């Protein structure tokens, strides 16, 4: 057995969040649309049509490049990547080539609690191709069609250096990358719907062996990135240990079988005959534009995480969970504006709020609850107007009906009983009904007290003030002795 070092680099394609396509004014909202309904002469590559660059594309790509600490090249241009395929109407893809929008950046992320850094080799802009369709109402059996709705949708390709040393790290790096593009509203980062696509290069090497790069494609979720790369590590390790060669090739991840399969037949290196697209002029990125975008850059996940840790005294774990979704992080901070107890708000969000969201299958932005409403509820808990248990049930209703906490509590008559006389009467009743527990408590079994408190809660349908109940119980029991 020898020790192998795993080396992984990622190539991530991100669909940019623009309204219009990259070179025409067709809509990018293609999901669920009938084939070839979002097309025009330009994205269909009809004779005579010409591309005109959507400036929003440059802005979004620049935003991503700056967030990834890339060096911005002062002048850049588009090349044509020439190849034949039915989903490519022009016979070439318009893409940046040797002058990408950003180079030499880096990305920081946490993996298993440790802070890591992956260098970014380049980030470039390119257009998406169409989609081959092999079945559908409009297709005669045995034929294929091309859906051009996706043709010309703007993408950025982000390429990391091979700085990742395990499948976990690759997954965590990708998650951070997704987080960043979502934060910046550069992309919606949806892997299932294909707006974020990830390929990986992976090789195993040892002191005596140089690694052979294998490209893994077709990984459609963070989980499949992790699984595919883990599989690949094992596959390559086994080969190397048996003294067999690893071939430089492209392999496809089969999600169902849980294996990577060699994509044979496309081994020969294609010559794409790149040359500057004469239909588009080279363009320069003015310093003012770069500065403007830089200054408008929103706080990035890792920065936010660190600020949450210092400003609100949260643990790294707590902060990390909150910042994973920018909307949640914003919700957290908005709640604090009306109820400034960060720990408590954090706990409620990561447990109860998350649970409700999951049960309703929704997101915080679509949910009926607002930060000020949550603050109001937590204030009531904090002032002991209602118990935690009550608050959980109130929160549930807030999620379903959108009503405010105070309203629900009043309607249900749920105000906390903190009248000492009233509680004492209930306590006495409970003690009478539970002689065994009383005896247990008196003989030193602390647990029995908890049971008795529970009984009081049951009698009051949870409305008894827990602290007060406890104190009264102890007081009354001590007089029993």
């Amino acid at each position, binding site marked *: 057995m020898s020790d192998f070092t795993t080396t992984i680099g990622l190539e991530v394609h991100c669909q940019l969040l623009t309204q219009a396509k990259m070179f025409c004014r067709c809509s990018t909202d293609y999901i669920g649309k009938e084939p070839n309904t979002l097309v025009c002469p330009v994205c269909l590559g*009809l*004779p*005579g049509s*010409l591309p005109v660059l959507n400036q929003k594309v440059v802005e979004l790509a620049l935003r991503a490049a700056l967030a990834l600490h890339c060096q911005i090249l002062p002048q850049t241009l588009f090349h044509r990547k020439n190849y034949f395929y039915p989903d490519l109407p022009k*016979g070439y893809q318009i893409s940046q080539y040797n002058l990408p929008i950003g180079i030499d950046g880096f990305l920081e992320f946490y993996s298993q609690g440790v802070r890591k850094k992956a260098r970014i080799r380049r980030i470039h802009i390119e257009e998406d191709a169409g989609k081959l369709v092999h079945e559908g109402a409009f297709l005669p059996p045995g034929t294929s069609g*091309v859906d051009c709705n996706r043709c010309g949708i703007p993408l950025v390709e982000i390429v990391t250096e091979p700085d990742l040393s395990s499948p976990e790290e690759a997954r965590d790096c990708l998650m951070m990358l997704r987080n960043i593009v979502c934060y910046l509203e550069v992309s919606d980062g949806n892997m299932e719907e294909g707006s974020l696509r990830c390929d990986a290069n992976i090789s195993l090497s040892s002191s005596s062996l140089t690694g052979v790069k294998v490209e893994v494609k077709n990984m459609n979720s963070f989980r499949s990135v992790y699984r595919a790369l883990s599989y690949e590590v094992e596959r390559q390790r086994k080969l190397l240990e048996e003294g067999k060669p690893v071939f430089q090739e492209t392999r496809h991840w089969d999600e169902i079988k849980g294996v990577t399969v060699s994509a044979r037949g496309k081994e020969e290196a294609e*010559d794409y*005959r790149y*040359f500057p697209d*004469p239909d588009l002029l080279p363009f320069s990125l003015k310093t003012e534009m770069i500065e403007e975008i830089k200054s408008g850059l929103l706080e990035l996940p890792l920065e936010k995480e660190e600020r949450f840790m210092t400003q609100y005294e949260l643990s790294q774990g707590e902060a990390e969970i909150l910042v994973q979704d920018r909307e949640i992080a914003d919700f957290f901070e908005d709640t604090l504006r009306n109820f400034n107890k960060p720990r408590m708000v954090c706990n409620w969000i990561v447990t109860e709020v998350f649970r409700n969201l999951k049960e309703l299958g929704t997101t915080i932005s679509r949910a009926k609850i607002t930060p000020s409403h949550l603050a109001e509820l937590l204030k009531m808990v904090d002032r002991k107007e209602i118990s935690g248990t009550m608050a959980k049930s109130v929160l549930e209703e807030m999620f379903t009906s959108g009503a405010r906490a105070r309203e629900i509590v009043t309607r249900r008559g749920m105000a906390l009983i903190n009248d000492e006389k009233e509680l004492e009467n209930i306590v006495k009743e409970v003690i009478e009904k539970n002689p065994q527990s009383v005896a247990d408590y008196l003989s030193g079994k602390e647990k029995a007290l908890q049971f008795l408190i529970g009984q009081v809660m049951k009698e009051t349908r949870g409305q008894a003030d827990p602290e007060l109940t406890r104190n009264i119980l102890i007081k009354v029991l001590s007089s029993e002795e």
Partner: protein
Amino acid sequence: MKIEEFKDFTIQDYHHLLEEKKISPLELVNIFLERIEEGEDKIHAFLFVNEEKAKNEAREKTDNWPEELPPLWGLPVAIKDNICTQGMPTTCGSKMLENFVSPYDATVVERLKAAGAIILGKTNMDEFAMGSSTENSTFGPTHNPLDLRRTPGGSSGGSAASVCALEAPCALGSDTGGSVRQPAAFCGVVGLRPTYGRVPRYGVVGLASSLDQAGPITRKVEDAITILEVISGKDSRDSTCAPYPPFSRNEIPSLEDIRKIKVGVPREYFSSRVEKVIGEKIQEALGKLKGEGVELVEVSLPHTDYALEAYYIVASAEASSNLARYDGVMYGLRVEGEDLQDMYFETRTLGFGKEVKRRIILGTYSLSSGHYDEYYLKSMKVRTLVRKDFEEALKQCNLLITPTTPSFPFFLGEETQDLYERYTDDIFTIPSALAGLPSLSLNCGYEGGLPVGLQIIGGPFEEGKLLGLALWLEKLLALPSPFPELKEGRGQ
């Protein structure tokens, strides 16, 4: 009215007739349709005559005669068949697009229509504008109306022939390396290649994107001005189109200022390659200018000899990529094959002619890795040198005058022995195209019934000066406009 009466008409003259209601758009269209009917079996300038729609359009206009007439109102115009016209064929002279009907209008067509023009039809051309004789058209060559045995030139040969034979009062062509000017020269008419970026390319089917420019082919310089005013100006659909307003005749200097223009005569354009008579005719014209007090200076464009090679490499490279879209998948010709690869092969083998294939191969080769630096990149460098040549020359003068072509129109069907020889026909029109400069060809005399083209080249966006000089020179030369009898032989 009879077609002969229009022999010396300018667009302005038609406009006045229409303004005075002395003729209706319908009558006008009918006169030209008749002329087409009469001449086409000899000339074959048109691939498609828009008879029905043109008549309907003209009838519609006749019924709704506005108070104020737009500049081209009711005027029939012929369009080269690589310029997209909605609802009409746009074949580019290729089998590949034999049945292609464009769903949209090119910007230039849109602008012509908006100015009131009526599209008369689509004119013949060398396949995908590759060639200078129309012999590379899948649909057979066009004959030179001045001598039916000869070529009208190309690739816009159909447009030039239609204007020469007065089958159309004016036409649009496209010029990549001389495709407007050379046929204009061969047919004794006016051809203008505007500055690259002056006229939108949207809808002009790309041969070589960095070189293509649409331009007018007309009977008089005055008409080139009118058409340029209509078709030029920025276009939000073409990034390479300059963000300038349309050309205006107000940019043309006064005659007084034109007289002060210094004319450069590039030494390299008067070499032994030029047929003697052509050189003499140009010198005669220059003599006339000199007689009027215009200062002539000899200048040098030292990289002229390399321009040809650079042009064929750059143009072929761009063409190889621009023509990749004709793959049988979405539109145009498809020849079924056993599999996808096979379908590509069959379709492109049958769909493209010899010259197109030759240039695709040449272009693909010069872009492929390992050859890119040696060919494409080097050619781009030569292109820069050629541009600098002109910059230098135009520091010593305002405009350049050269022959448009080194020789007279050759006979159709003449065995092309040497391909290189054929390519050198464009030797005088290619350099200014590479440099993106405005250039115009104007008839400066006949020799045995065949016209001699004189080329004027200007600095970027200096069409004003260029057209000013052309107008004046045209007046000084006082040559009759062609009105050929369409006989096999020589005759004006």
